[in-house]
C-alpha cells in the first residue's frame, strides 16, 4: 500500500512538472532558442518560468525541511559538499552547447517524447547514450585510480 502511494505521488509530481514546463513554454524549442538568443530578438518570457519555479521552491523548501523526515522516506538528502571544480564547469558547458543547439534540456525532451516524433526520439536516445557513456567513463576512471593510488 505504501509503495503504491509512493509511486502515485511521484507520478503526480511528474505530471505537474510536465504541465509547468508546457504552460511555461519550455517544451517549445523555438521559444527556448529565442530566450537564449540575447543578440537577436530576445524573448525574455522564459525568465519568468525560472523566477516562478525558483521563488516557489525557495519559499516552500525551508517549510518542508522543518519536518524531521519526508512523509514517505527515511531522511532528507544531506546537501552536497563538493566544491566547484573542473567537472562541474566542463559538464555544464557541454550541456549548454547541446541545449543551445536543440532547445531541449532533459525535462522538456522527456515531456515531448511520446508525441514529438523522430527528432525527439533520436535526441532522447542520444541523451541516454551520453548518460551511459558518462557512467562507463567514470567506471574506467575509478578503476584506473584504484590501480594507481595517488
Amino acid at each position, binding site marked *: 500500500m505504501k509503495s503504491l502511494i*509512493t509511486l502515485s*505521488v*511521484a*507520478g503526480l*509530481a*511528474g*505530471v505537474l*512538472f*510536465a504541465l*509547468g*514546463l508546457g*504552460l*511555461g513554454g519550455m*517544451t517549445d*524549442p*523555438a521559444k527556448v532558442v529565442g530566450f537564449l538568443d540575447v543578440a*537577436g530578438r530576445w524573448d525574455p518570457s522564459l525568465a*519568468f*518560468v*525560472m523566477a*516562478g*519555479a*525558483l521563488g516557489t521552491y525557495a*519559499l516552500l523548501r525551508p517549510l*518542508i525541511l522543518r*519536518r524531521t*523526515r519526508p512523509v*514517505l522516506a*527515511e531522511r532528507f*538528502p544531506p546537501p552536497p559538499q563538493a*566544491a566547484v571544480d573542473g567537472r*562541474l564547469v*566542463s*559538464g*555544464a*558547458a*557541454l*550541456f*549548454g*552547447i*547541446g*541545449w*543551445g*543547439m*536543440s532547445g531541449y*534540456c532533459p*525535462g522538456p525532451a*522527456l*515531456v515531448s517524447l*511520446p*508525441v*514529438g516524433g523522430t*527528432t*525527439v526520439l533520436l535526441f532522447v536516445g*542520444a*541523451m541516454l547514450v*551520453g*548518460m*551511459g*557513456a558518462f557512467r562507463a567513463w567514470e567506471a574506467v576512471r575509478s578503476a584506473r585510480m584504484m590501480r594507481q593510488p595517488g
Partner: protein
Amino acid sequence: MNPVLLPLLGGILIGLASAVLLLFHGRIAGISGITGGLLSPAPADVGWRVAFLGGLAVGGVLLAVFRPESLGPPVLTSVGATLAAGLLVGFGTRLGGGCTSGHGVCGLARGSKRSLVATLTFMATAALTVFISRHVLGGAS
C-alpha cells in the same frame, strides 16, 4: 495569454512539483539525475524514478491533447546535429551533476554556489551556441 503570467504560472507548477518530491520522497527534482540514476548497474529506488518520468510522459500527452501549441516543433532537422546535441546534453548533465531543474531551480533555491556556477556556465555556453549558429553561421534569422 499574457506573456508574463503564463510563464510565471508554469514556473510555479514546476516549483510545486519539486516541493512535492522533497516533501514526500526527500528527493531533489533534477531530471537528469532522476534519469541517470536508472542507468547504474544496480539501480536503487527504481520505482519512484520510473513513476516520476512516466508522469512527465503523461503530462506530455495531456499537453498534446489540451494545449498542442505548447509542444513546438524541433528546431534541429539534421540527424547528425540532433544526435550530437543529445549526447552533449546526456554526458554534460551527468558530468556537471545537474541540468536546468537540478542546478537551475533546486540548487539555486538553496543558495548552492556549485549550482550558481553551473547555471551561469550552461546559460553562457547555450547563449554562445545560439549566437554562433544564428548570427555567425547564419542559420535562422
